[in-house]
């Protein structure tokens, strides 16, 4: 398992590995928002927490198709499935690697991009907290989507379609925390819900993903 994590991280850092691309995408979407909705700063401040969450979610989503597809194409998944490592563990490790290479950088970059969108001052703290709690759920749910669509050539977009509705609860509670935080309201309830979702998903989702992957390998 440590070997798998190390390998996935190494691969992400190599040429074409996609480390930092999620980040770049996040950055660019954030930059394009003022270009498309116009530059009024009070408007931007109102939509900033929500759009930052949306941008992070999209960035996360887009890097998902690397999660399994590459290993599928070159036969690594077949070989992993015949190895002593249980698939559930392999998938959890892969989700973890995805979070480290995508979710974590997004969390760290979010405050900087918040400045670009005139995020009100108290919002920064809550934005980071909510992303830190929420992005692991995004990675884990995403690995389920990736496992479902791994047999489909260039399933990337199909995967988006399947995964996005599954992201809805996480997005709602996450954005709610950030939004309430930005205007100084109480954030405890959505924060607890967010944490609950993340924990539940981490505990249960790998089994569903492994089941889907086994079917696909068949």
């Amino acid at each position, binding site marked *: 398992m440590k070997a798998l994590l190390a*390998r996935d991280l190494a691969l992400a850092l190599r040429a074409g590995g996609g480390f930092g691309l999620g980040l770049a995408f996040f950055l660019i979407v954030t930059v394009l928002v003022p270009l498309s909705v116009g530059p009024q700063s009070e408007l931007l401040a109102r939509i900033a927490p929500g759009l930052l969450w949306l941008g992070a979610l999209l960035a996360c989503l887009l890097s998902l198709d690397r999660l399994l597809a*590459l290993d599928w194409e070159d036969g690594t998944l077949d*070989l992993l499935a015949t190895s002593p490592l249980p698939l559930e563990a392999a998938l959890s490790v892969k989700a973890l690697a995805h979070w480290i290479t995508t979710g974590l950088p997004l969390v760290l970059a979010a405050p900087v991009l918040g400045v670009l969108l005139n995020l009100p001052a108290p919002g920064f703290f809550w934005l980071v907290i909510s992303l830190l709690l929420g992005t692991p759920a995004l990675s884990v749910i995403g690995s389920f989507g990736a496992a479902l669509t791994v047999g489909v050539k260039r399933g990337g977009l199909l995967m988006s379609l399947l995964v996005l509705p599954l992201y809805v609860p996480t997005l709602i509670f996450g954005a709610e925390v950030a939004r309430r935080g930005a205007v100084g309201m109480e954030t405890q309830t959505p924060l607890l819900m967010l944490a609950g979702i993340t924990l539940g998903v981490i505990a249960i989702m790998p089994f569903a993903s492994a089941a889907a992957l086994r079917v696909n390998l068949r």
Partner: protein
Amino acid sequence: MSLAVTDLCVARGGVPVLTGISFDLAAGQVLILRGPNGSGKTTLLRTLAGLQPPLSGQIEGAEDQIAYAAHSDGLKSMLSVDENLTFWAQVFGRKDIDAAIEAFRLGELRRRLAGTLSAGQKRRLGLARLLVTGRPIWMLDEPTVSLDVDAVAMFARAVRAHLAQGGAALIATHIDLGLDDAQVLDVGPFRASPEDLAGASDEAFL
């Protein structure tokens, strides 16, 4: 360690391709699968390796004993030869890759990224992976594709060494590997007829 297959029926795409396959494979033995293109060798190997369920029949002694090498090699083109082998060694709970490097003369290529190897060099690396798994039964699907004559001999040596250590091998191939004492199983006669649908997912609809 021994593999016993009884009255196996395997399917691909919901259609049975081979039925009534039975054989035993004991330590030190090698069995060559032969048969024309599309006769179902790959399907049989995948079933034995546990990647797909058989339609009917028993497979005994396969669980956690099999190192499978498919048409594709499972190599990462962005990792070096060394890193690729080390990864698979660790997955199978082992450390030493030098023997494998040695056996397939990859010494000079250790630092090269797998993506820059030629077709035959890649294949050699894929075969070296078998040595680091430590699994007793090798299942190989056309292992010598794009290997030159020297490399085929290298491969035969590796198989013989594996057998001498009490391993076994099941190899699907169209060419002669130079393994003299090998038994041969021609899958041609076991081709499933359209009636052999017991358990196939299409059966319910016929």
